[in-house]
Each structure stands twice: as structure tokens, then as C-alpha cells.
């Protein structure tokens, strides 16, 4: 059993064992699941070394037959693209368990069990190299999330949970059609094999076929990302989920969509991706600005952060479809950044909710005087989310905008509007919630500032924000190789360049030429 398989199966085994624990012994359940999640995280750290040594190729591969006919293989592996996403998932799960420590009171056993199952599901998606396996994990990750929202959420939880499930289900049905169709064409579900047949010309799609399959995959992923106008499930799901659910949803589950685009849509259907890039970018830009504008007027904190996700994920999609090195590296980096900083925001909002039992911004005010440390943590996280230099989001947004500027300058301008708006809604939130008069209602609820347990959750996240903001050189090199392969596939495709690749050739050259400088500048920072 490889390290990777341990990371995949330990949480699933933990899920089953948790179900066997006595349901009244809450302490044991919490301690056990936390221990499992921590062990999984520690094991997953072991993946870093080998993958960083050779990030372009799949490491820790296991490839055996699961079902003979149709040829479904249990084929997993991790490379530079999936490495950090796997680590993001294993890193956040123990934090999510810790943050739910006291706030989850009913049905405790099931809650923590589902957290572990969710971890297995998402890790499975990130490491599957077989389309069928990918689909299986994709659906499995849906089930625990549905329960997390539906059982432990806020008032409108049932509506939100069902909406979440149905949206994703509708998308994944289209994906299933595409997967089966791909199989009928290629007699394989194995992604590397299919890529190989495409490269050697043994398999090819007509433009129409390619476009339809691309679209079927893309819609499934676009719902998950989410890309405007398929985002409407997200504010409900985020707004109603319990803290841990919101964190996992925002930080990890949304990444499944963007990861799918990078792992499946672009390499398999480069022509179609290129042909569709211009309108996808337009949707991404609409998402960036629209998400930010709607976030600004939200009276509910969680929904505010949720809409800010729509805006942030718009950046990711923009970066990918600029088809430049900068844009794609920035997109992957931004996926991680968003995972850390939005996850932290949801956690901090959760800490506020644990005290005041309200998510309405108008119920707060002057929190800084009663809980200065909590305020400090919140402000740092918000600054990160806004894209302040030295903190993580800056690096990702900068790279994406650079890529967008190289591809077509007005896109960068539009994206910059989103960055400006993000400071507007975050700063305005901070002002209303944390500064000003402290009403009596707030004073009476905030009896204590951060506890040790809460620090244990928040500090690692803040440390990561700083590290990823200053030391991006730790993370970016592993990502580059894979993006370069994908980019080559897209740029070399035969269709006339349109939209996202207007200046394709010079951009590539510029991108390569500027790489060393970029590294230096990252190091300097």
C-alpha cells in the first residue's frame, strides 16, 4: 500500500470505525476523528518530497483492474497539479474538526464520520487517473456534504442541501454521458492512455464531437466552480452550512471543478477549449465583478463571504483560459490561496457566530473592543483575501492579471475592478462589524476572546497565508510543469487562435523568458 493509498483509505476506514463508536461518548468520537485526520495529514506530508523531485510525472501510482468489462481501472497517482490540492484537503480537515468541537451538539458521531468520508471523497477526485474512478469519487464527495448542510446547517438548510445536491447531480449526469461517450470512442477510461492515443493520432474527435464532450464536462465543472450564471446554489449552500461544512465546501469542493477543467477539459479537448475560451472568459469576468458587487450588499456575513468566493473563483477561471503560463500558474496558486483565506474567513465568521449566534452584520459592531485578538485575526485574513502584498492572494491575483494583460489587456482591467471591489466589501464589513460603538448585545455575548483551541485552528491558517505570500517559490515550481504540458497541448492545437489566445505565440515566449525573473522576484519577496 503506497502513501497515497493510505491518504485515500485511512479516512474511509476512520469513517467506518467512527460509526462503530458508542454514540454518547462525544469526547472519544471527537478525539478519534481528530487523531485520524491529523495522522492522514502527517502521512500526506510524505507525498511532497517525491512529487517535488519530479512534478511532471505521476508519482505513487497504483494501476490495477477494478472491473474487466468495461475496462475500469483503479488507477491513482499524484503529480504537481494535484499535490497541493490533496495537501489542502488533508490540512483543512483536522482544522474543521477542531473548529466544530463545541458548536456541533446533535448527532455528533455522524458529523465527524462524514467529515472523514468527505476527505476520502475529495482526495479520491484529486488523485484519480481513471475517468470512471474520478466520477465515482466525484459523486461520493457529494453525499457527506449534502448531509453536513442538511443536518447541521442553519434555518434554510434543507432547501440549500437539496439545491446543492440537485445542481451537482444535474451536472454530473452530463459528465457521465461524456465519460461513457468517450469510452465508446476510445475503449478506455484511463486518462493517460486516452491522452496517449490522442497524441499519437490513434484517437481523434471531430470538432463537433470535441465541442459537445468539452461542454458536457465543462458544465459539470462550471457548476462546481461555480461560474456565473451557474453559481446560484453556492450562496445558499455556503450560507446555510455549518462552519466546517462551509470551509470544506469553499476551500476544497469548489476546487474540484477548477481541477477538473485543468485535468480533463483542457488536455482532452484542447481545440474545443480554445474555441470556447473567449466566452468562458467573459463569464469569468462577469462572475468576478458581479460576485463582488453582490457581496457588497449582503446583510449576512456568510453570504458575503460566499459571494466573494464567486468573485475569487472567477479569477481562477480567467487565469486558466488566458492560456498563458502566468495565468495558469496563477490560477492554480489562486485555488490554494482561496482555500486558505476563504476557509479562514468562514472559520472566523463561525467563531463570531458561536458567540453572538447571529450572522447578520447589523447584529455586530465594535467587536474590536471586546475581542481584540479575534479582530486581529479577522483583519489579517481579510487583507489576505483582498490581495494585499506579502499575503497569499496577492501572488495569485498578480500572476493571473499579468497573464490576462498579456493575452488581452482589457481583461486585466476588468479583473482589476474586481480586486478593488473586494477591498470595498471586506473593509466595509470590518468597519461595520468590528469598529464603532459596541452595543450591549455584543458586549454581553463576547465574554471571551480567542480560546487556545481557536488559536490552534486560526494560527496555522495565518501562517500559511504569510508563507504562501512570501515564499511562493515553495509551491509554484511543482505546479509549473503540468501547466506547461497542458498549455503546449492547447497552443499546438490546429484551430485558428481566437479569444484567449489572441497573442498566443509571443505570450509563450514572453512567459518562458520571464520565468527566472519571476522566481527571483518571488524569492525577494
Amino acid at each position, binding site marked *: 500500500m503506497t502513501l497515497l493509498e493510505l491518504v485515500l483509505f485511512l479516512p474511509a476506514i476512520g469513517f467506518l470505525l467512527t460509526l462503530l463508536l458508542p*454514540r454518547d461518548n462525544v469526547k472519544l468520537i471527537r478525539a478519534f476523528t481528530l487523531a485520524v485526520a491529523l495522522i492522514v495529514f502527517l502521512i500526506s506530508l510524505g507525498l511532497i518530497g517525491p512529487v517535488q523531485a519530479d512534478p511532471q510525472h505521476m508519482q505513487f501510482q497504483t494501476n490495477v483492474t477494478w*472491473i*474487466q*468489462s*468495461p475496462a475500469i481501472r483503479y488507477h491513482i497517482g499524484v503529480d504537481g497539479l494535484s499535490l497541493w490540492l490533496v495537501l489542502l484537503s488533508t490540512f483543512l480537515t483536522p482544522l474543521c474538526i477542531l473548529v466544530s468541537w463545541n458548536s456541533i451538539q446533535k*448527532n455528533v458521531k*455522524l458529523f465527524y464520520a462524514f467529515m472523514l468520508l468527505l476527505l476520502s471523497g475529495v482526495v479520491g477526485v484529486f488523485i484519480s487517473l481513471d475517468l470512471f474512478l474520478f*466520477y*465515482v469519487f466525484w*459523486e*461520493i464527495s*457529494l*453525499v457527506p456534504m*449534502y*448531509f453536513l448542510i*442538511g*443536518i447541521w446547517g442553519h434555518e434554510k*438548510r*434543507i432547501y440549500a*442541501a*437539496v439545491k446543492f*445536491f*440537485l445542481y451537482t*447531480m*444535474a451536472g454530473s*449526469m*452530463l459528465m*457521465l*454521458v461524456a465519460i*461513457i*461517450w468517450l*469510452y*465508446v470512442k476510445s475503449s478506455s477510461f484511463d486518462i493517460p492512455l486516452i491522452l496517449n492515443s490522442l497524441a499519437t493520432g490513434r484517437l481523434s474527435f471531430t470538432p463537433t464531437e470535441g465541442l459537445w464532450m468539452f461542454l458536457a464536462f465543462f458544465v459539470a465543472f462550471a457548476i462546481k466552480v461555480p461560474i456565473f450564471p451557474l453559481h446560484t446554489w453556492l450562496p445558499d449552500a455556503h450560507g446555510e452550512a455549518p462552519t466546517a461544512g462551509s470551509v470544506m465546501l469553499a476551500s476544497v469542493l469548489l476546487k474540484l471543478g477548477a481541477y477538473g477543467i485543468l485535468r480533463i477539459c483542457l488536455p482532452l479537448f484542447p481545440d474545443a477549449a480554445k474555441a470556447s475560451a473567449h466566452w468562458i472568459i467573459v463569464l469569468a469576468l462577469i462572475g468576478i465583478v458581479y460576485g463582488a458587487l453582490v457581496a457588497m450588499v449582503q446583510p449576512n456575513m456568510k453570504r458575503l463571504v460566499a459571494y466573494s468566493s464567486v468573485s475569487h473563483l472567477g479569477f481562477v477561471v480567467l487565469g486558466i483560459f488566458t492560456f498563458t503560463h502566468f495565468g495558469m500558474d496563477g490560477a492554480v496558486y489562486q485555488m490554494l490561496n482561496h482555500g486558505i483565506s476563504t476557509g479562514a474567513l468562514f472559520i472566523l465568521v463561525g467563531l463570531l457566530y458561536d458567540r453572538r449566534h447571529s450572522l447578520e452584520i447589523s447584529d455586530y459592531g465594535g467587536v474590536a473592543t471586546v475581542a481584540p485578538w479575534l479582530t486581529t485575526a479577522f483583519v489579517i485574513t481579510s487583507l489576505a483575501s483582498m490581495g494585499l502584498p506579502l499575503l497569499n492572494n496577492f501572488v495569485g491575483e498578480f500572476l493571473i492579471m499579468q497573464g490576462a494583460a498579456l493575452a488581452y489587456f482589457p481583461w486585466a482591467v476588468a479583473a482589476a475592478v474586481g480586486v478593488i471591489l473586494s477591498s470595498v466589501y471586506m473593509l466595509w464589513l470590518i468597519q461595520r462589524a468590528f469598529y464603532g460603538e459596541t452595543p450591549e448585545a455584543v458586549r454581553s455575548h463576547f465574554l471571551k476572546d480567542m480560546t487556545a483551541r481557536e488559536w490552534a485552528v486560526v494560527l496555522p491558517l495565518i501562517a500559511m497565508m504569510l508563507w504562501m505570500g512570501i515564499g511562493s517559490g515553495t509551491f509554484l515550481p511543482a505546479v509549473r510543469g503540468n501547466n506547461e504540458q497542458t498549455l503546449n497541448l492547447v497552443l499546438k492545437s490546429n484551430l485558428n487562435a481566437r479569444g484567449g489566445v489572441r497573442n498566443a505565440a509571443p505570450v509563450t515566449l514572453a512567459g518562458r523568458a520571464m520565468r527566472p525573473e519571476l522566481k527571483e522576484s518571488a524569492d525577494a519577496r
Partner: protein
Amino acid sequence: MPGNYMPSAAELFRFAPELLLTAAGTLLMIFEAITSPKQKRGLPVFAFLALLAALVLAVVGAADPGPAFSNMLQVDGFATFFRVLVFAIGAMTILMSTNYLKQAEHEGGEYYALVLFSIIGQCLMATANDLIMIFLGIEASSIATYILAGYLRDDKRNNEAALKYFLLGSFATAFLLYGVAWIYGTTGSTNLTEIRRLLLDPRNAPNAILIGGALGLVLVGLLFKVAAVPFQSWAPDVYQGAPAPVSGFMSVGPKAAAFAAFLRITMWGFEPAKIHWAPVLCFVAIATMIVGNFAALRQSNVKRLLAYSSIAHAGYILVALTAASKTGTEAAMFYLTSYAAMNLGAFAVVVHIARKGEKHVEIGDLAGLGNRQPLTAAIFTIFLLSLIGVPLTGGFFAKFYVFKSALDSNLIALTIIGLLNSAVAAFYYLRLIVTMYMQAAPDGVESLPRPSAGVQCALAVSGAATIVLGVFPSLVLDIASRGASFIR
């Protein structure tokens, strides 16, 4: 062998499971009359063991496939597959029924005898290679099921269900029989192998219009039996009215057998004419999926909801039939197996929560089940997820194979409609899960006793089967694929 109608030993052996069950059913009737009430407890055990023995005989008999009774029956891999399936369904039904009948104060040997007789009919439908034999099988199975549907004779809903089922059912079988007469008139035979030979022979091809009309009449009868649109309207009323274990049995047993006959008629006898019947089935499949799923959205009674869901599932299976290929046949066989596991399981839960007089079969009665009986709720959730088609359950691979066979035959639009339908279906199954886990039980709710031993067994077996089919589908698919080619 003209003139010699004495069956050989080999033929009798091929027919042994049916013979055994006939004897067992008859004995049950006699025991019912002569045993004391206390001894009657043994009757379901006897029926259960008879079914297991028949299952073993069927498996053993599969070693020597071949025709029986002047080619009226064809004991091949296909027949064995469905025989084993209906025997297992019968055994599960008995497990679900014992405590239910005790609560209803209607224990009796004749119930189990009727189950056995119905299963004999279904066996005949699966093995029949002759239209007359198929008709006899359908009748044997249906008549027993009509009585079962009205078994609690003091219950108004039972009576209504039985009468409705009987009137509409006999009407539909009449269509089938009329179609058989037409076919005999046109081709001079009722034997499917003969008919196939005739259809394949370009020199004396029968009149296409007559054959088409005849096949249409046969299809009416079959579509009625599988509750496909536009002949589905009986199913919700009958499933809702009949005793819960019988509804569970009807939703899988007669349906599996009817599909077996359906497959043998379309994919063997009338396979040469598939360009004529496949488009018809395509429309029926689309209509059935849509009507079943959308009608289920608005149901508040769990039995009725499962009835509409069962209509929708018949639609998915019809997609596999529309594919009109060997992979389609395999997919349908796999679907029926996993559908039997998950749907019987779901009905076992209904039997459990319904209690005396079936007073608790509204969706609201499930409220808080996740807290009150976590294990039952968890298993029910597995069945529901399987009915939705979530991976690692049998229902997922069932759908997967069906839609793969459809895409293999280039039925792209049908596949997309079908899969979007299953997204719609997710909504009403989720409603049950929502009620179990996300709504608290109302105050002062009657306490729910533990599931009876029989129901526990049924839940465990069908739950395990659902998971195993979802993780190792090849176990069943390989057998299905060997059976799907019939005997040439």
C-alpha cells in the same frame, strides 16, 4: 419427435425447480388444513426452504442446458439467471411477510402457497420459448398475485387493489393472447425459434403489417405487466392498496419475469424485426421515465412514491431494450438484479414502519428515523442512494450499463433524457432522506419497535447485495453476459 410426447428424464430434470415448487405449494395448502395454529409457524419456513432448494436445483440444472417439452421451454443461461433471481425475490418476500401477517392477524399457509405459485408462473415466463407458454406463465403468476394483492380480505384498500389489478390485468392479457393468435395466423407457429427462423428467411417473409400489428398487441400486454406508459395507471393504486410485502414482491418479481419474457420475445424471436419495434420502445421509454419521475415528485405516501419510482425504473430498463443489442440485454438483466435488491430493501423498510393496519406509510412518518433507529435509517439511505444511482451502489452500475448500452447503439438523445431524468429522480428520493435525518420526530410519536427478525434478515441481505453489486458488479454482469446470448 412427432408422436412422442413423453418427456425425457433430462427434460424433467430441467423442469425440476418448478415441479418441486408445485409440490411444495400443494403441500402447504394441505398442511394449512391439518396443522394446529402453533405448527403453522413452520409453514413459512417450509416455503422458504422449498425456494432455496429450487434455487439450488436451478443452479445445478444450468450445467445441462437445453430445450424441454417439445421446445416449449428453453432452459439456458438466460432462464437460469431469471429463475435464480425470482427464487431469491420469493425468499426475501417470505422473510418480509411473516411478521407483517402476524400483526395483521392473517397468518396462513395459503399466503405462502400463493407466493410459490406466483413464482412458478414467473419461472415459466423466464424459461418459455413459446408464446403460449409465456401466456400461461403470465396467467399463473398474475392470478396468484391478484389474490395476494387482496389477501387481507377485510381491508377495503386491499380489495380495491385486487379488483383493479385483476380487471385491468386480465384485459391486458387478453390483448397479448389476441396478438399471439395473430402471430399464429401469420406465421403458423407460436414457437419463438420458429418465428425467428421465418423472419430471417427473406424468401417467404410474413406480411409485415400483420406481424407488426400482432407484435403491437403482444407489446401492449407486456408493457402493461411492466407498468410502462401508457399502461402504467394501475400500478400506483395497486401498490398503495396491496399489503406492503406484496407490493414489494410485485414491484420486482413479476416485473423481472415480464422483462425476461419481453427480452426473449424482442431480442430472440422478433430480433430480426428490431428496426420496427425499437423506435416504439424508444418513445415508450422516454414517456415512462418522464411520467414516473415527475409524478413521483408530488407523492406524500411512501408506497405510492415507490410505485411511481418503479414505473420510472421500468423506463430505464426499456432504454436498455431500445438499445436492442447483446450489451442492452446484459444491462437489463443487471438492472433487474440490482433493482430487485434495492427495491425489496426499500419495501422491507416500508413493511417495518407501516405496522398494524399500515397506518404509518406517509413520508412524515419517517421523521426522525435517523435518530430513533439509526441502523434502519442508514440502510434505507443506502437503498435510496442506490435508487438515485450514486456510485458504489448497485443502482449506479445498473444505470451505467444501461446508458452505456444505449450510447453503444448511438442513442445519444435517449441517454441524455434518461440521465437528466435520474437527476429529477434524485429530488424525491432525497425528500425521504431529508425527512429521516433532517426533520425531528413530532412530539408524542408512537414508539417504533425493533424490526422483526425476518425484516432484519431481508434488510441485511438486500443491503449487502446492493453494496456488493456496486463494488464488484462483474460478479453478476459476467453471468448476465453469458446468459444474454440465448441458445442459438
